[in-house]
């Protein structure tokens, strides 16, 4: 009885403390969401009155936000394309081939994730400054790809490892050519992973701050750099609205990744069932 009571209080204490820690993680985000609709965008919480002014102010004349948003979107799109090209080829090399110096290549891929971003940013600044490329969206995108491509490679390695090679062997044994196998088996199965890699590359670039700050010029400022500037130099209350939109964006992206994963698992399962495998591998079979 004594023992039972002891563990019960222990359990309640653990639950309370764990809840507090979860609040510690979640509250800053909740507070931003609430404040973005608040009459008083500075500090006061909870708000006294509600407004949409900060959202309207984003698109008012002279607002810097639309330009920053479109630059970030452009840079992130470019960086996503670069990361996918690098990611698909690198993952193929690392998973599906006999690569000399395999572990050295893998260590190189992990490098940018482990080394302080400020050091990478400084190095890229030293590379692009003499080339007079500061402020160029291409330069910023190339820089972001250094951070985004390793993530894409890791996701695609996991994707390729998860694909049952027997499906490819089965198709080959039934006479499907290399291209047919790639088009009808490997690509459809890898597609969810590729979409996930694209989404994560996009977020990585869209949120990237250190490299952007070093490679920006006065006229080309990405969204995170504009947020930072608004928090340090100028007082711009619409930064709460931008922040709320960024939160919504992150949640949406994560939701998409979860959805794509879920669809992907179903697809492999249905392919692994016998009838479908036969259908796929049969010449001219259009079951996929």
């Amino acid at each position: 009885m004594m023992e039972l009571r002891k563990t019960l209080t222990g359990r309640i204490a653990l639950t309370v403390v764990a809840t507090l820690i979860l609040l510690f993680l979640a509250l800053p985000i909740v507070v931003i969401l609430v404040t973005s609709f608040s009459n008083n965008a500075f500090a006061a919480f909870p708000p006294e009155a509600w407004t949409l002014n900060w959202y309207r102010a984003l698109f008012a004349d002279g607002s810097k936000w639309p330009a920053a948003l479109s630059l970030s979107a452009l840079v992130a799109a470019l960086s996503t394309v670069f990361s996918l090209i690098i990611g698909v080829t690198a993952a193929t090399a690392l998973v599906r081939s006999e690569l000399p110096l395999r572990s050295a290549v893998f260590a190189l891929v992990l490098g940018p994730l482990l080394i302080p971003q400020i050091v990478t940013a400084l190095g890229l600044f030293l590379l692009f400054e003499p080339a007079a490329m500061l402020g160029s969206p291409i330069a910023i995108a190339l820089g972001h790809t250094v951070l985004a491509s390793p993530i894409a490679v890791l996701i695609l390695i996991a994707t390729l490892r998860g694909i049952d090679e027997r499906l490819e062997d089965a198709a080959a044994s039934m006479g499907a050519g290399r291209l047919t196998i790639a088009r009808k088996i490997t690509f459809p199965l890898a597609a969810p992973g590729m979409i996930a890699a694209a989404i994560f590359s996009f977020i990585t670039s869209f949120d990237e701050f250190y490299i952007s700050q070093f490679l920006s010029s006065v006229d080309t400022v990405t969204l995170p750099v504009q947020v930072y500037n608004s928090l340090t130099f100028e007082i711009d209350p619409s930064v709460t609205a931008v922040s709320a939109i960024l939160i919504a964006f992150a949640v949406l992206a994560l939701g998409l990744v979860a959805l794509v994963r879920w669809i992907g698992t179903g697809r492999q399962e249905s392919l692994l069932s016998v009838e479908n495998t036969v259908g796929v591998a049969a010449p001219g079979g259009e079951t996929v």
Partner: protein
Amino acid sequence: MAATLTAGAPARPRKLLASRRTRVGILYALPVVVYLLVLFVYPIFSTLVLSLKDADGSFTLHWYADALTGVNLSVLFTTLRISAETAVLSLVFGFVLAQAITRLKPVWAGLAMLVVVVPHFVSALVRTYGWIIMLGDKGLVNETLAWAPGAPYQLLYNELGVVIGTTSMMLPYTVLLLYGVMRGVDRRLLAAASSMGAGKVTIFRRVYLPLVAPGLASAGLLSFILSLGYYITPALMGGPNQTMIATLINQQVTKENQWNGAAAQGVILLVLTLAGLLLVKVVSSLGASRKKRNAS
């Protein structure tokens, strides 16, 4: 050529096949290797070169001497101190939270993990701004604690604010790492200890803790390393006494046009990080050998 070499082509000489797979590997590895050599390795190498050069191009250690004296040295100590405080706090919070999550039913555990993962993908700038709003004189925290003596408390623009902020940035990493480690503990070992008459405290201290210790060490080291090069939160939530190396590098480049000095700071940061990573590697290999011994 490609058309004839289908994967299922029967009875190809093994050696030819192997060399073909090697050629494919090299070809496909080329983009990532070239990209990272040009845009990652070379820039870091040129940082190193720059840190060893004087204005006239001759070799010097002047910039390192400069980086390790006076104000710059105290910035280095501040960086190490704030990173250590952050690492300890995120390790303690991470341990408690991961421990609590492993005891939850799957549905609740999933929800709790969502609360851990979602903030991780929200921009650090946004979360920092959330903290600034929360910790202000009239923010949520001070309003909640209004009844307490001495309120409102100064929670911003000092080290307390910085450590609160950076800890919340590092916490998702430690929780995810520790949750993985805790899930990997073989429950049969705990049951075996219990069947031999060990009490809860003994099992925790003599079986569980040694099993998760390498994971704890790696998680702590990782949050320490990640904090070293960080400055978004310290710059926005700290005062002049919380300047960290990364901020200094940024100032030297953007304000003072002092690239050599910035490069030396960058190399020092890099060396500290690599030392930390080496420690992580040693710790995790110790952990692997311990696991093997326990299982036998």
